């Protein structure tokens, strides 16, 4: 029953549709296609550290309902309005909440970028703003002054945004410019490239000796497990004993759940490399500043879910991949909803440019949660399609590696006292 959500949803959808009255049937559908993805199809992506701006924000600070909290003292000297929409600061309230959505132009620009590209971008913007501001010295005539003043509020707005996000970026940098983070990301690279996966073993062991948070440790272990197609008995036993002895007996149940979810198991069929190569999950030479491929979201790893959706944008769709689908857990289902003849539209070709008249809209539904990085990857895809395809993403939950595993981790036992 675990891996069948997408199929069940598809079945229910088709069944409900059969019963629609005829007048509803002639309403033209909004979406050209709907892609239902079960989380089980790709368990590795959420385990990896997200390297997009928004993804990192979520991992390190937690983005809840499009909002993020920081300690207010870092943001001192900010006036109201612009990027940080915050009510009057109470002296006792030490946190600052920032709304994170694309209504702020600057955030819309940076949220999907790889983190390492954001710093330079903010710097360049700051420079431009400074220059624009300096223009006031050059404005001599009334007309020029008037022009400048009209730009002023716009410039002010950007300045405030810029200041907010520069501070946020600095806070993020603080958290990631340490060997812990760097080593971890480097280990993850080894894992998803399936190059010398066992090298991660002593690293994880040491993490446990240092009593790192369990979610961090489990992420790496489960990632290693997926990339190795399951553990050999020795490793399997070693890890579970260490986990219980370090973190507590209650994790006997955590391990049970991980096993059921397919995240922690013994060796099974060797599918990872096949999928990795066929779907081009790993990519060499990633350009983080100016990416040409969606694998930049993890600096060299493309989420399988994003790649599957990417197939839809190509004319051959999923042809030729049926073999591959056998390796991906869960049934694959392809359904065509018959359209009422009156609304079957032809996608007209605009003669000169060779593009389609109306962009097609694809609804991507994640059943079981998705990460910000996956969303950024899809946005990147849409961008690359140059207005021909756009995506709308629906998900049962927004998650990151930690929140994902925390749903499986057993809470500590109740004790006397």
């Amino acid at each position: 029953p675990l891996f069948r959500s997408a199929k069940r949803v598809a079945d229910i959808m088709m069944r409900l549709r059969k019963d629609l009255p005829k007048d509803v049937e002639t309403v033209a559908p909004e979406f050209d296609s709907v892609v239902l993805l079960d989380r089980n199809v790709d368990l590795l992506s959420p385990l990896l550290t997200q390297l997009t701006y928004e993804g990192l924000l979520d991992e390190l600070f937690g983005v809840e309902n499009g909002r993020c909290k920081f300690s207010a003292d870092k943001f001192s000297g900010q006036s109201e309005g612009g990027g940080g929409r915050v009510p009057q600061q109470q002296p006792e309230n030490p946190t600052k909440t920032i709304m994170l959505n694309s209504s702020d132009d600057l955030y819309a620009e940076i949220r999907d970028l790889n983190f390492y590209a954001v710093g330079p971008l903010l710097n360049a913007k700051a420079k431009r703003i400074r220059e624009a501001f300096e223009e006031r010295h050059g404005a001599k005539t009334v007309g020029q002054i008037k022009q400048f003043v009209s730009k002023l509020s716009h410039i002010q707005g950007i300045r405030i945004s810029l200041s907010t996000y520069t501070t946020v970026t600095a806070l993020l940098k603080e958290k990631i410019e340490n060997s812990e983070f760097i080593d971890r990301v480097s280990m993850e690279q080894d894992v998803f490239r399936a190059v010398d996966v066992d090298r991660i073993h002593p690293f994880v062991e040491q993490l446990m000796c240092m009593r790192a948070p369990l979610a961090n440790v489990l992420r790496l272990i489960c990632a290693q497990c997926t990339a190795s197609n399951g553990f050999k008995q020795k490793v399997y036993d070693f890890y579970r004993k260490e986990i219980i002895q370090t973190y507590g007996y209650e994790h006997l149940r955590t391990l049970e759940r991980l096993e059921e979810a397919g995240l922690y198991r013994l060796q099974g069929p060797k599918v990872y490399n096949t999928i990795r190569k066929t779907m081009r999950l790993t990519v060499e030479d990633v350009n983080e500043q100016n990416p040409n491929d969606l694998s930049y979201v993890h600096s060299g790893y493309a989420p399988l879910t994003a790649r599957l959706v990417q197939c839809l944008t190509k004319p051959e769709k999923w042809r030729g991949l049926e073999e591959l689908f056998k390796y991906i857990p869960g049934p694959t289902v392809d359904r065509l909803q018959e359209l009422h003849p009156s609304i079957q539209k032809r996608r007209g070709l605009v003669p000169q440019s060779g593009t389609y008249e109306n962009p097609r809209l694809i609804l991507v539904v994640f059943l079981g949660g998705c990460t910000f990085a996956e969303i950024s990857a899809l946005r990147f895809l849409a961008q690359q399609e140059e207005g021909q395809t756009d995506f709308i993403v629906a998900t049962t939950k927004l998650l990151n590696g930690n929140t994902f595993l925390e749903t499986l981790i057993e809470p500590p036992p109740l004790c006397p006292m």
Partner: protein
Amino acid sequence: VEDVFAIGSEHPGAVLFDAYKEFERKSAKADEYIRIIRDGKKLGEAVDQCIAAAGAELEPSYQRLLLRASSFGKCFLDDFDSRHFVDMCHTLRALNAIRDYRIAIPLTMVQFEKMTLATLVDRLILRRHYALAMRICKYMGLSEMEGESRVLAHWACYKVEQRGIDDHDLARQISSKLSDARGISYTDIAEKATECGRRSLAIELLNYEPKAEKQVPILMKMNELSHALQKAIESGDTELVYAVVLRMNESMARRDFLMAMQQSDIAFDLYLQMCRAKDREQLKNLYEMADKKVKKASVCVELSLRSPKVEDKLEELDQARDLYSIAKRSFEAKMTEDEIKLLDHQKMLETKLGVKYVGLSLYETLHRLLIRGSPFAEKLKSQFKVADKRYWWLRIRALTAAKKYNELMVLAKSKKSPIGCEPFFQVVYDNGEGDVHEAKHFVGLLP
């Protein structure tokens, strides 16, 4: 009609009609007549009048004449809205059909308009002229919901009351007729069937009902609980399944109920969840019955974690360990056994030292003992056969936490460390800002 046919009538309609008659006779007078009307700008009116007259006529041949006349007139009009004309044709067709002696509803146009199409259809249904009703609905463009589907539904109900046909055949007949139509509530038909006492027919009909939320309550009312369960499961609606399971729990005998639960994984799982929320003991029984020892053991583990009292914990853990052993899960059995021993120690330590120990992991327990410098740590180490490497890590961390840097340095310099000197540095360095300068002392030890 009078206006048109009355002798010597000067109404535009009459003139048009005459014009048409002349036209048929291929006489030039037609043109004359048309001009008369045209000049008086009454052509539109004329056409309308003819149409209305056609509506009022009861005799089809006259209707046709009048309609042709109006059609003839139409040709000379530039912008005439033909809808009126078309509607009238349709309506007349329908009315003529029902005026037919076989149906014998002599309705006049006025009566019809007052009565509305929907009512007419109802009347036809009441008289059981289903086929005609269907055709009229379709022809007159009634929406499916109001028209065809309703008729079919009534027809089906009627059929149900008929005794002649066997249940199964009837179900098939009905479903084949109804399969194309949308929006039919099979549930209503099924209810009718139940009223007539034809239970098996009702059940079969319910199979065709696409909306499970409707199917299931009826099935439950009919006390067809296993069917209801099956349908609920098919629908994928957990609320429904819960509802059925609850009902079954109430109304069925214990044993029968438990057996029914075992028939379906989904029902069983949901029932398990219900028990998990309310009745853990029952949960254990269920697993026992299903011979799922490992799962039962898991419940015992859960119960031990949730019980605050140590005695209760130990009791559940004993059960768990035995179950794991029988199920040949040696790892789980060993871990559980270890936990039992550990809890014993922890209880003793709490009593002796007055500090929390129960519920901590093995290494955490050791960590805290080492911070206090308690000799019991060594005892615990040997009993649980903790590896030397691990133990050293624990010692380093504990000493750092206790800020006993001198002892730590002594340990580091002793050169007995199975893990080298790097951990010394690393642990101190990572311990926090205040200790970074202490860490410097350990740098010198690194190779």
